[in-house]
């Protein structure tokens, strides 16, 4: 099947594209909607909002998640907030400015038309969430409050304490449960999608494993929506939930959905450092701390004195030194790279030497302990719980950690992948954040996709395509289920001596060392040699205890790691192919004399969409040229 990479961006001025497109799209008559079955995989912000909205419209929706309840999806852990171009602060915000900031923040590697639509819809999201009863922070007069976030000079971030993701997800979850009660949506918790079923080239169903009974189940529908999140846990340690995984997206990729820009990963600068080999995940400390904390390391290599014994003139406040105008508030990618450089230089702190200080002493002296407590009390408490150190007295130790995946399955303007009928929403797709995501924009994208984009575009797909009725008795379902069963049987039959976790940890180390914050040709080639060996090691030496016919968390984990061992190769290859630095992707070969990321617009102004050709075989690269009619491309500078 020849792949055509048509982004299907509507014609007309950027501000009118979405409205024109909405009118041009075909509709499904209300009485006919119930005749269509739509499969939604995932119940995070994108999945829950899509399932609820499609249920409200009258479609017959089947909604799957791996957790015991849809409310547990990892969107729940987002802390900071959600951006929207409401301009409630009268500070000059607009749809155009949010669009502009997002394209620039993404280092000019996103699709303009998608980003503009996202900025347009941002205002509707806030209205919808307020109507659901989301308890956003308010000012004394009763109106909605905003705060500022990185990459913007206006105050446009709406928030609910440090739990914005939780409150937005519960809003979507409650709407979803209302549809479940009305029997518009059928919910399938503790189910993991293991294959997508194609009939006549179109996505017509999925094969899942019932995680409680181990049964392989098949579900047929007229379209499939994946909202299965990002692939951060490929790195083993990340800020993602421990069950987050790439499996659903990867299996779709193996069935023909192109995977775009996998090397665009976001490493968050302020996380609590690794404390030992037992560590299972890393905890984020909100980036807002950099408003008052000063980042420093000792000037001298190997200085192991406790921080209070290092005199002021032997400290290097390197962000303030190198970026006098932005100081400690440089963007995430810049802050992360500089922390790594300081540690690589032998000036890291803490037991491992893989940390830098985030010091609040000056801020406490300036505004007092009480003000700091009011602003950051919950974060300081969380830090103390994990590290057993009091950050009011001792500087915090922080280090960057894998956080978010900008890359994902390639989708067109309608959020449809290269497999007709297979739509991809939220973090699982690639479209809106380019090479770097701005803070408070992930929640915005998930909800825009689910509440306001897919309800329109899926109707157009259903109305425009003949979809003959079929059941799970079709041969394609049997073939997919047999494949899934075979893989499970193989995993259980290896009976080696290595634990799944130990191999995952090794993979994580390879990716972190050579495909992490800073990448170069030699390192990427080294990773490309090591990953297939690890994969081989896994399939020969892994131990997957237990049986397939009941709840078996080892088996679930093994399947996910097996997919990561394939995916990691693509991630690395994409990083090798892109011989430019942009956003979170830093190629050492491409930097300015001041060691900043240097884009190569002449050669790399495209989305790299990869076609699967077999495990261990070179994938085929398809390019979607990125055209910038609105935003002028410039070199980012934070000096």
């Amino acid at each position, binding site marked *: 099947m020849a792949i055509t990479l048509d982004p299907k961006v509507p014609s007309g001025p950027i501000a009118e594209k979405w409205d024109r497109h909405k009118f041009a799209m075909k509709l499904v008559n209300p009485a006919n909607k119930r005749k269509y079955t739509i499969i939604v995989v995932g119940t995070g912000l994108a999945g829950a909002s899509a399932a609820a909205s499609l249920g409200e419209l009258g479609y017959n929706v089947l909604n799957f998640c791996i957790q015991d309840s849809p409310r547990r999806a990892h969107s729940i852990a987002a802390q900071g907030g959600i951006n929207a171009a409401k301009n*409630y602060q009268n500070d000059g915000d607009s749809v155009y400015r949010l669009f502009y900031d997002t394209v620039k923040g993404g280092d000019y590697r996103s699709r303009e038309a998608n980003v503009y639509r996202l900025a347009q819809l941002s205002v509707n999201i806030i209205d919808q969430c307020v109507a*659901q009863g989301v308890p956003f922070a*308010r000012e004394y007069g*009763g*109106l909605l409050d905003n705060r500022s976030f990185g990459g913007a000079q206006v105050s446009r971030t709406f928030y609910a304490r440090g739990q914005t993701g939780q409150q937005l997800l519960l809003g979507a*979850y409650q709407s979803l449960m209302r549809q479940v009660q009305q029997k518009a949506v059928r919910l399938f918790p503790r189910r993991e999608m293991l294959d997508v079923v194609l009939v006549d080239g179109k996505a017509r169903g999925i094969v899942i494993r019932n995680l409680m009974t181990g049964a392989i189940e098949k579900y047929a529908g007229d379209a499939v929506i994946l909202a299965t999140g990002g692939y951060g846990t490929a790195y083993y340690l990340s800020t993602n939930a421990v069950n987050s995984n790439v499996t659903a997206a990867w299996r779709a990729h193996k069935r023909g959905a192109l995977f775009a820009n996998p090397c665009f990963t976001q490493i968050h600068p302020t996380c609590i450092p690794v404390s030992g080999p037992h560590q299972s995940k890393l905890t984020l400390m909100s980036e807002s701390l950099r408003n008052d904390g000063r980042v420093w390391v000792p000037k001298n290599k190997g200085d192991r004195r406790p921080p209070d014994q290092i005199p002021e003139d032997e400290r290097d406040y390197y962000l303030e030194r190198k970026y006098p105008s932005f100081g400690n508030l440089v963007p995430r990618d810049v802050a992360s790279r500089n922390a790594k450089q300081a540690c690589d230089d032998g000036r890291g702190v803490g037991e491992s030497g893989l940390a830098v200080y985030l010091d609040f002493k000056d801020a406490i002296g300036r505004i007092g302990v009480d003000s700091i407590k009011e602003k950051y009390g919950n974060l300081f408490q969380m830090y103390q719980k994990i590290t*057993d150190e009091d950050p009011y007295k001792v500087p915090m130790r922080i280090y960057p950690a894998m956080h978010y995946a900008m890359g994902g399955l390639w989708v067109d303007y309608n959020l449809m992948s290269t497999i007709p009928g297979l739509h991809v929403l939220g973090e699982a797709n690639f479209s809106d954040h380019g090479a770097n995501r701005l803070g408070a924009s992930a929640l915005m994208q998930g909800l825009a996709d689910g509440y306001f984009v897919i309800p329109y575009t899926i109707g157009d797909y259903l109305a425009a395509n003949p979809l003959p009725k079929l059941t799970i008795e079709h041969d394609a379902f049997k073939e997919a289920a047999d494949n899934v069963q075979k893989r499970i049987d193989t995993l259980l039959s290896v009976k080696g001596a290595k634990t799944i976790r130990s191999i995952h940890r090794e993979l994580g180390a390879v990716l972190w060392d050579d495909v992490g914050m800073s990448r170069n040709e030699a390192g990427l080639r080294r990773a490309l040699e090591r990953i297939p060996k690890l994969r081989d090691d896994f399939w020969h030496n892994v131990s997957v*205890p237990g049986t397939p016919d*009941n709840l078996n968390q080892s088996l679930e984990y093994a399947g996910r790691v097996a997919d990561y061992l394939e995916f990691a190769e693509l991630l690395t290859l994409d990083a090798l192919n892109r011989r430019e630095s942009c956003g979170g992707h830093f190629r050492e070969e491409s930097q300015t004399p001041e060691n900043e990321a240097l884009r190569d617009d002449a050669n790399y102004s495209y989305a790299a969409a990869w076609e699967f050709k077999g495990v261990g075989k070179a994938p085929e690269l398809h390019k979607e040229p990125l055209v910038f009619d609105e935003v002028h491309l410039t070199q980012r500078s934070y000096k």
Partner: protein
Amino acid sequence: MRLNLKIWRQAGPAATGHLEDYTADNVSPDMSFLEMLDVVNEGLARLGKDAIAFDSDCREGICGMCSLVVNGVPHGPDRGTTVCQLHMRRFKDGDTITIEPWRALAFPIVKDLVVDRGAFDRIIAAGGFVSVNCGGAPDGNTLPISKEIAEQAMDSAACIGCGACVAACKNASAHLFMSAKISHLALLPQGQVERHHRVMAMIDQADVEGFGSCSNEGECEAVCPKEIPISNIARMTREYVRALLVAGK
């Protein structure tokens, strides 16, 4: 540290369970409780033995998935802490720790330490929402809400739905869980329209699921990782009486 563990093992929903003894060696005080169990499970895997099944996901205290009773206390000894945030420095070398699942009729055991909390989802489905379809919402600033009310609603909305309140209650009552959602929505103007129906429907559903009633002991509040107070239950009771009297439901 070296720890003696007594862990509930149960092969499946219908099987008979029992406490089994394990030893955890080389436990670092910096490990979280769940990381300690990860290490025990890695040891079992090396022996080709079935891992101890337990739920967890975000491991930072917000998803509500983790659910262990540690030495008789849901989420363990620390106040306002989920078991994923509990650290081993809280224990001493040589300690014996008993680890059990949530125990309640409405939360049947799936395997080992994993329970089925679908009953909570069904209670929310019965009425724990505002019935607004996507698309027609008025501007977010149309209805001013006082900061004080918004903060109170947020205090209640902070519930993570973990079910520790049920596990701690001798009646296995879901009152704290329900009352948090009922309070959150009853406090806000958006929740007014369905206020009476909501409280009746949710309480009816809890009865169907087999949760007990409340006898005001306050154990739920003591173990709640988000420290949601039982004043929410008082508010729910008022909402219930009000629905009976005013709406004649």
